[in-house]
Structure formats: structure tokens, C-alpha cells
């Protein structure tokens, strides 16, 4: 029984939330939303529980793909239903299923309109994103990658803010454009190798010119998703308009799809191009880190500020990737997980305020700490984590990346470390204006502190942020072997003999 389960654990992780999502759709009744909410909560907790054995039964010494499942899906094109997870995918899968629980809880009383569709969208999205993290066949992966756009498109469009249509269409088209170029690259490699298996692509020799084209096709897809400067402009729009749950999933997981995919596809398939273009990538990352942090500083809208902060933090992730050393890469992965917790928490904090006052503007608040002391405590903790205070998870990843980049080039580290100043500046300045000072207006005076549900959500995230900050070993243990294997793969040229 257990053996059967472990052999198909990734399938369960993907299809269980989707099955629950479909079931939730059939409970559509906005006048009696309780059964819908409970079913969604049970579904998300069950889906999270199913993914836990991925960690407990994981072989830490093995850097390759574990829990593999494979059978032929579309024979005409040799497309396989092929799943597997390595040390890179497992933490992200756990993050995804965990975030879904948080999102369902955060929507509990907040979403009153079309509850079933809302909950179902997130459950289905969760399954699809786990599919992205575990698919080992290019087309199978692509199907998940694109399919997850559909629920996200609807979430932003149906439950979003006033400018939601613009934001969601922009989000969809931006992402679609990049993805389709990636599809062309997949088809090209299929005609070269006769296979869509990612592992076959890893072994496929390619000339530098071809590698650069392939890399750029991947870049179009992943840079948009991460997002990297200058293709980041969809993200602030999408975040501002999305409902809280949508922002949480976007920031915590959707951005990681891009980071993960760089490591899964672009770099190992085109390692020589990755080295060749590394200065270009590092430059873009540094621009994101420094310039976008400055942009964040002047935002008046809290969600927009956190959105820009996300872009700046994801700049660390791509910087960590393209300095090609162990510290940098592991730091980038830790940063991805940590950013998943912190950005989720930050967006939830904004959600708490928005549900009460219905404004995201910083100037609409002031002195919130006086009326919501417990909430203020959490918010300050997450703000500290966001600005990279030692002892929180935000510090670990950024510090590792900075250490790694010093080994490559002092100036990279020098520029990157600016984020510690700017990050603290924009986050703490926002905290100061929102939470401290005199009570600014009647709205703030009338605020009620966190209810039990909100307290529970934020407490769980606070514990995780501190845990990863103080003791990141459980996380780095999983990734270690995979990171070493990836780095050794990247150090071998794939150019055909004679070049």
C-alpha cells in the first residue's frame, strides 16, 4: 500500500487538489458557502499531507530524480507522462501545497462572491503548478505551465480590483508570448533528438549559436515569469488588481516557476550559452536588485511596493544562478523558498488591512499599531524579514548569494548588497508610515485586531520565517546533492567536438 503510494506520490500530489477543485465547483451556492469552504480546506490540507512524504522519504544523497513515474502518453510524438522530483523540485512542491492551504484559509470570510469558483481555481492551480515542478517531459511540462494561466487569469479577472481586466489580459498575453517561443525551442529539439524527455536534452550536443537561440527562447518564457527587468511590468499591475489569494500565489509560487525552470531547462540544456550570456543575465539581475528597489521606494500603494520588492528579491535568485558556484545557487534556492513565505505573509498583511479599510494606499493609514497591536507585531516581523534581517529567512538566501558573488566579482557583491540598505529603506519606511505615529483617521481608529483565523495564518508563517532563518539545514540538505550535480553538469561544455 505504502509502496504503491510512494511510487505514485507525484501523481497524487498533482491530481488530488485538482479532483478536490472539481468537486468544490459542484458545491456552488453563495447563499450557503460553509460546505464549499470546508470542502476546500479539507482538500487543501489533504493535498498538503500527500506531499509531505516527498520530504520524509527523500534520499538526500541522491541528486537525481526520485519518485519517477513514466508511461507513454501521446505515442505519435513520443510524449510521455513522466514525473520525477529532485532536490530542487521537492521544496517547491511542498511550498506550493502549503501555500494553497494558507490561501484557502485567507479567503474564508473575505470572498463572498462565487466562493466555489474561487476555491476551485486555487486548488486546481495548485495541482497544475505541482505538475510544472515535477514534469520531466517537455510537452507535459508545457501543458501544466500554460494551463495554470487559465485559473490565474480568472482569479484576477473575476475577484480583482477596478483595473482588473487590463491587468489580467496583460498578465496572460505576456506569459503566453514567452511560453510559445519556448514551445518552438522544444519542437526544434524534438526534431533533433526524436524525444521530448528533458534528460535527453541534457545530453544533446549543440553548437553555440543554436544554444544561444534555445537559451533566448527559454529566456523569453522564464524571464517574463520571474519577472526580470525589463519584462517585469505585468507584475505590479497583476499584483495590485489581484485579490489577496491571487497575489499570494503569484508571489509565493508563480514567480518560482520561472526560477525553477531556468535551473531545469535553460541552464542545463544550453550550458555554454548560459556561460556565454552570464554577464548579460547578471546585469539584468543587478538592475532588478538596485533599480527596482529604488522604484519600490517611491510607491504609494502597498501592494505595488511589495510587488516591486518581489522583483528586486527575485533579482537575487537570478544573480545566484548565473555566478555558477555552490553558494550562489543554494542561496538562490533558499531565497526562492524564503521569498515564498515572506511575500505571502506581506500580501496577507496588506489583505488584513484591505479587508477592513478597503484601501491599499499607504497614506490611508497611520498609527495602526495603536489599534491592532498583535497585527503590528507580525507585520513588523515580516517587514524585517523582507529587508533581510539576520535571524529571519530573508537573510540566509541573500547573504549566501552575496558571499557567492564575491567569489566571482567583488563589484557584483558590492552592488547586490545595496539591497540590504534599499530593502530596509522601502520596507521600514512603509511600516513606519502605516503602523506608527498618531492614529491617522477614523478608519484606523475603528480597526479591530486580528481574529483567530488571521492570527493562525500569520503565526504559522512567522514560525516558518524564523525557522528557516535560524536553522536552514533541513532545506539545504534536500537541495545539496542536486545543486552539486547541476553545477558539475554546467561545467561541462555541450559543444560538438571540433568547436
Amino acid at each position, binding site marked *: 500500500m505504502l509502496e504503491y503510494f510512494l511510487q505514485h506520490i507525484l501523481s497524487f500530489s498533482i491530481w488530488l487538489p485538482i479532483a478536490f477543485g472539481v468537486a468544490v465547483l459542484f458545491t456552488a451556492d453563495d447563499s450557503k458557502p460553509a460546505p464549499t469552504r470546508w470542502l476546500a480546506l479539507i482538500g487543501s490540507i489533504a493535498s498538503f499531507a500527500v506531499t509531505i512524504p516527498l520530504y520524509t522519504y527523500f534520499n538526500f544523497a541522491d541528486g537525481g530524480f526520485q519518485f519517477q513515474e513514466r508511461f507513454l502518453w501521446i505515442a505519435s510524438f513520443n510524449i510521455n507522462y513522466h514525473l520525477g522530483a529532485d532536490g530542487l523540485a521537492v521544496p517547491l512542491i511542498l511550498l506550493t501545497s502549503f501555500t494553497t492551504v494558507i490561501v484557502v484559509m485567507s479567503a474564508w470570510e473575505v470572498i463572498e462572491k462565487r466562493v466555489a469558483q474561487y476555491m476551485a481555481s486555487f486548488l486546481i492551480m495548485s495541482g497544475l503548478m505541482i505538475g510544472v515542478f515535477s514534469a520531466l517531459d517537455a510537452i507535459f511540462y508545457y501543458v501544466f505551465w500554460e494551463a495554470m494561466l487559465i485559473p490565474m487569469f480568472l482569479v484576477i*479577472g473575476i475577484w480583482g480590483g477596478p483595473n482588473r481586466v487590463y491587468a489580467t489580459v496583460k498578465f496572460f498575453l505576456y506569459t503566453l508570448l514567452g511560453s510559445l517561443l519556448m514551445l518552438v525551442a522544444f519542437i526544434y529539439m524534438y526534431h533533433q533528438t526524436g524525444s521530448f524527455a528533458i534528460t535527453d536534452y541534457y545530453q544533446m550536443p549543440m553548437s553555440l549559436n543554436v544554444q544561444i537561440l534555445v537559451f533566448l527562447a527559454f529566456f523569453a518564457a522564464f524571464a517574463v515569469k520571474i519577472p526580470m527587468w525589463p519584462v517585469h511590468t505585468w507584475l505590479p499591475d497583476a499584483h495590485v488588481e489581484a485579490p489577496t489569494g491571487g497575489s499570494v500565489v503569484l508571489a509565493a509560487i508563480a514567480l518560482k516557476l520561472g526560477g525553477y525552470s531556468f535551473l531545469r531547462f535553460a541552464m542545463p540544456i544550453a550550458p555554454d550559452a548560459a556561460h556565454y550570456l552570464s554577464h548579460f543575465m547578471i546585469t539584468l539581475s543587478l538592475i532588478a536588485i538596485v533599480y527596482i528597489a529604488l522604484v519600490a521606494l517611491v510607491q504609494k500603494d502597498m501592494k505595488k511596493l511589495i510587488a516591486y520588492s518581489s522583483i528586486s528579491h527575485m533579482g537575487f535568485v537570478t544573480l545566484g544562478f548565473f555566478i555558477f558556484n555552490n553558494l550562489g545557487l543554494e542561496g538562490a534556492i533558499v531565497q526562492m523558498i524564503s521569498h515564498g513565505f515572506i511575500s505571502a505573509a506581506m500580501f496577507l498583511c496588506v489583505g488584513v488591512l484591505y479587508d477592513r479599510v478597503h484601501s491599499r494606499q499607504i497614506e490611508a493609514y497611520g498609527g495602526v499599531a495603536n489599534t491592532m497591536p498583535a497585527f503590528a507585531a507580525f507585520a513588523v516581523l515580516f517587514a524585517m524579514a523582507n529587508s533581510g534581517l539576520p535571524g529571519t529567512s530573508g537573510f540566509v538566501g541573500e547573504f549566501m548569494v552575496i558571499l557567492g558573488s564575491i567569489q566571482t566579482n567583488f563589484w557584483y557583491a558590492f552592488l547586490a548588497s545595496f539591497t540590504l540598505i534599499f530593502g530596509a529603506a522601502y520596507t521600514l519606511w512603509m511600516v513606519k508610515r502605516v503602523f506608527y505615529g498618531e492614529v491617522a483617521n477614523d478608519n484606523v481608529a475603528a480597526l479591530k485586531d486580528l481574529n483567530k483565523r488571521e492570527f493562525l495564518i500569520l503565526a504559522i508563517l512567522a514560525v516558518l520565517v524564523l525557522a528557516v532563518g535560524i536553522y536552514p539545514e533541513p532545506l539545504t540538505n534536500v537541495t545539496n546533492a542536486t545543486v552539486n550535480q547541476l553545477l558539475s553538469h554546467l561545467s561541462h561544455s555541450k559543444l560538438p567536438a571540433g568547436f
Partner: protein
Amino acid sequence: MENIRYDLITALPEMILLGMAMLVLIADLFLKQSNRIAIYGLSQLALLIAAYFTFTTHAPGVGYAFGDTFVDDAMSDVLKLMIYLGTSLIFVYSRQYIQQRNMFRGEFYALVLFSVVGMMIMVSGQNMLTLYIGLELLSLSLYALVAMDRDNARATEAAMKYFVLGALASGMLLYGMSMIYGMTGSLNLADINHALMNDAKTHSVLILGLVFIVAGLAFKLGAVPFQMWVPDVYEGSPTAITMLISSVPKLAAFAFVIRLLAQGLQTMAVDWQQMLLVMAVLSIIIGNVTAIAQTNLKRMLAYSTISHIGFVLFGLMSASINGFASAMFYISSYVLMSLAGFGVILLLSRKGFEADKLNDLKGLNQRSPWTAFLMLIIMFSMAGVPPTLGFYAKFAVLQAALQAGFLWLVVFAVLMAVIGAFYYLRVIKLMYFDEPLDHHPIQVPADMRVALSVNAFALLFIGLMPQGLMSLCAYAIVKSLS
């Protein structure tokens, strides 16, 4: 004697359908309006019987009849079965619509059945004249169908336009055929191919003939620059007829192209490849860009059809077994999508109200979440977003084109697909993000509701398991062309 019997058996489904269509016409004379539903049953029965005989007489080999003018091979059988299925769905979807508009008469069913016979002859034609006769039978039936709603000025205008331009295209086709005949001395496709192979030198008259033929075909398919009639006819015709025009005849037109270009003029592939390439690129650009500006749903779907045809041409111009099979896969996927799309318009229409404006879809998710969800699947499928069928259709033709070496054209096509996604997304936006303008309850017969749901969900399920349809198309093409 033996020969005649063999001929008759080979063309049995056509004969049966023709006989049944006549029966429908005669029976109609003796029926009162209240009993006229029997005509509907009789027509469905006709399709069922034809399907039965097509299926049971199927053999993997190739059989010729009537002095090699008519062929029964895997491709013809598969396409005919698809045509029956599509026509049967059209009958189900359109029944209430035509009842409400005083078009529920024997002529409607007889004309549709005649057009089906025309399509079948196109699918099975092995001689230029047979192909032409099939095409004319189809076209003349369609002209009459468009004009069936006599008092509707727009429909009459559409019929006129369709007829005049269609006749012109038929003329061009015939002219091209006559030139090919003049150069090769035969109307039979196999003989033409043989003659061209032996006489390797290309002759300018041949090329000229080819140009006329391709232009005629492009008109029938609705490819740019011969697309002018498509939006007007789609918009002007009664929606039930638009659904017919936009769906199953495309299967026949596909077969027509395969028969003429891939079987008859195979040796001139280099020449027609270039023509198809230009038309494919133009169709995708004009179809997608112009669709954005439309406010009428039927017109939007017309431009969407043009861009889909562009993708089909992408598969055809690859001029390989892989390319033809993927084009066939695309066109059959397209027919399923198109039927479902127009089915939703028919579902939302009622007496005195055509739900053919984009704004009529506003807030559909609040009026009927189920219908909105069906339309959501259809739109994402047309946009080519996985996991729907439309994605695999685009995937198949793009990989064929890439295999044939058209890398940059493929990149161009995917960029255009992004533009295309925009107007499909707008439909979803109207349904899901806007408030409804129209609060009438949706009243349609249960069989239509079920059929439409199955049709739309097929787009999702075949999307999850596309192998069956892919194999079927590959089987049809491989058995017939090699």
C-alpha cells in the same frame, strides 16, 4: 455486371444518402407542420445508415469505382464519418432555432443532406470532374440554404454575395483544370500524376493552371486573399447555416486539396508550396488582426476561421505525410471547435433574438455558469491553450512546418497566435468579468444541451488524450497517400 455491382457497393453510402434526401423531400409533402418532426428523425436516420455502411464497408486498401473516377480509401471513410457526425450535431443544435424562424421545413433537411452528398463526392473524387461536381453540389445547396430565410434582407444579400463569388471561384477552378487537362491529356488524378512524373520539364501553362486551381481552392477554404466573402456570409446567414458553412464543408475542402495537390499535382509541390505559404501567412495575419476589431461574434468567428485555415495551410505546405496528417488533425479539431462555438450562439438565441453580438455574452457566468464554462473551454481551445484540443492542433502543424524547415515562419505563427489569444480572451472577459445585460432564461431542448456539453467537453478530453484522433488522422493519410 460484376463491375457495376462493385461500383455500387463502393458508392453505397452516397447512394443511400441521396435516396434518403429525396425521400425527405417527398415525405415532406405529406406531413402536417405538427408532424414535421418526423423529417428531423428521418434525416438523422439517413446519416446513421450512411455511417453504418461507410463503417462496415471500410477496408484498409484503396478501391476504385466508376472507371477510376471515384475512390474509397481510408481518408475518405474517416472524413465521411466525421462529416456525418458533424452534420448530425448541426441537426441537433439547429432544430429549435429553425423552428422559431419558420425554416423548419423539408427543404432545409433535404438541402443539408444534398450538401453532405456533395461533400462525400468531394472526399472521394479521383477525377477532376468528379471533384468539381461534388463541389458544385455542395455549393449550390449552401447558396440555397443561406437564402432560405426569404424575407431576411441580410441573408438574401449574403446569399447573393456567396453565389456570385462562389461561381467565379468555380469558374477559375474549372479554367485551371482545363489547362492541366490540356497539358497532361487526362482528368484522372493518377494519370495526371503519372504524366507529370514522366515529363519532368515544367511548363508555364501548367503553372498557370496550378495558379487558377489554387485560387479556386483558396476561395472555397476562405484563405486570404480570397477571404472577402467569409465575414459577410457568416454574419448575414441564419446562424444555423453559418454553423454548417463554417464546419463540415471544411473537411471536404481539405480532402479536395489533398486529392488535387497531394495526389494529382504532387510533382509540382515546390510551386504550390510557395503559394500556400503566402496564403498561410496572410491568412494568419489578416484573420487574427481583423478579428480584434469585431463586435459581432459571428464575424469574429469568421475571421477566426480564416486564421485557423492559415494554420491548416501551414500543415499542408509542409508537403509531407507528417504535414498532411497534422493538417487533417487540425481541420478536424477546428470543426469540433467551430460546431461547439456556433452551438453556444444557437443556445443563447431565442425567438426574435440572435445572440450574435459580443455583448450578448456579457455576464454569462452569472446567468448560466455551465454554458459559460463550455464557452470558456471552446475559446481556450480556439486560442490554442493547453490542455485543450486546440493546443495539440497548433502543436501538430507547427512541428510539421518546423520539420519542413520553416523555423522563422513558425516563430511568426506563434507571435500571431498571441494576437489571436487576445480576442478569445475578450470573450471570456465578457462572460466572466462583466455584469449581464440580458436576463432572459435560457430555454433549449435537453438533447441540445447534452450534445453541446459533450461537444465542448470533447475539446477538453481529447486534449487530455489526443492520441486517438492523431492516430486516426495519421492512419487515414498514410493509407491513402503512400
